[in-house]
């Protein structure tokens, strides 16, 4: 979707503010949100693509006001309701109370399994023998498309011409995978675009932007 998350090339956000010696989490709740996302992700009811899309559909004015982990919380709450882990009513009945001592269900992530869970090589890359549509050095054009669902083709490259720099192999296609329409495995390439092609003649002649793009985002130029 042409959402607020697709920020590449926008103006008006001001300078990059750097905090010296920044902590990993600024408040304990940020760490809890991070951990809850991981622990609930371990139930494998949704993919990383679905989880990204869940944050992208946040209304733009809320997205811009929210911090990174507020967006994670918003996305997680919605995924939990959608997948029947909790109800909206339970969520709205927010109370500050300690949890009851409930036994952990058998599918839940256990503390002792955390190292193995985090070191698993999860399968965005797949072994399907899909032939590449392009080869290194090909001149390509990023498609001028406006998908309504999740997509990983940023607006700033759509309709622009670039060159295949390298073929990364076969990966799950996020556009279909995010909405449960299958993995549609295909090649992902690094495609470079000159800064002038993307931003016009005033851009630096020596600069390039490399973007990872799937077969379905590209045509031969």
């Amino acid at each position: 979707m042409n959402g607020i998350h697709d920020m590449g090339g926008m103006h008006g956000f001001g300078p990059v503010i750097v905090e010296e010696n920044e902590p990993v989490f600024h408040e304990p709740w940020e760490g809890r949100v991070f951990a809850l996302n991981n622990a609930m992700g371990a139930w494998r009811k949704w993919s990383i693509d679905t989880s990204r899309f869940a944050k992208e559909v946040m209304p733009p004015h809320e997205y811009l006001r929210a911090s990174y982990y507020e967006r994670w919380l918003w996305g997680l709450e919605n995924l939990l309701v959608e997948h029947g882990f909790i109800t909206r009513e339970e969520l709205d009945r927010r109370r500050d109370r300690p949890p009851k001592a409930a036994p952990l269900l058998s599918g839940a992530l256990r503390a002792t399994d955390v190292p193995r869970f985090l070191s698993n090589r999860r399968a965005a890359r797949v072994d399907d023998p899909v032939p590449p549509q392009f080869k290194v050095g090909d001149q390509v054009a990023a498609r001028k498309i406006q998908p309504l669902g999740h997509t990983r083709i940023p607006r700033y490259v759509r309709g622009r011409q670039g060159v295949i720099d390298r073929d990364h192999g076969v990966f799950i296609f996020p556009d279909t995978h995010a909405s449960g329409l299958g993995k549609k495995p295909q090649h992902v390439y690094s495609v470079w675009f000159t800064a002038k092609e993307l931003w016009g003649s005033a851009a630096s002649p020596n600069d390039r932007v490399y973007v990872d793009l799937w077969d379905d985002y590209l045509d031969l130029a």
Partner: protein
Amino acid sequence: MGEHTHDHGRDHPHDAPLTDIQLRVKALESLLTDKGLVDQATLDALIDTYETKVGPRNGAMVVARAWADSSFKRRLLENATEAIAEMGFIGRQGEDMVALENTAMVHNLVVCTLCSCYPWSVLGLPPVWFKSAPYRSRAVIDPRGVLREFGVELPDDVEVRVWDSTAELRYLVLPERPPGTEGLSLEELAALVTRNAMIGTAKVKAPGAKR
């Protein structure tokens, strides 16, 4: 200030009411714990991993080794995933790695304009600025301006390559080795390598150089 005469500030943390976000998170955690879907020990272990175990020291060790060992450097540039796995740094958001070599003529800079993809296995969790709208919006359209704000001024003839992490590849910049580091040990070399240098928003300074 009206009826609100005293500040429930940070100096009275035990009396302070929970903020809305704190309450939401606490309530959600209790709800999921009640149902046996998560437990405290698991959440603590996940947090502890990224607060104390996985961070930019991992990436710095990779860079130091690449500087000191040319065959490792070659393997790193050819297949970063395998080379980094040799050092034991595997896992979440590092499943498919690419290393980008900075040279006198090419400067690489990494961004994720669409969310905040970041190579957790070698750099830990991303800093706020990397996830912020200013960085995500400007790194692709004004990389030299962004670099200038970080104190990196590049001559016009240096090629800037910005890498937008739109897929599941994660990028690690291999910064240039500074002069005057010939006799240093791997640990001493790694101590020079900053997180920002491995994102591409800094260069590695020679030992003793001013920040």
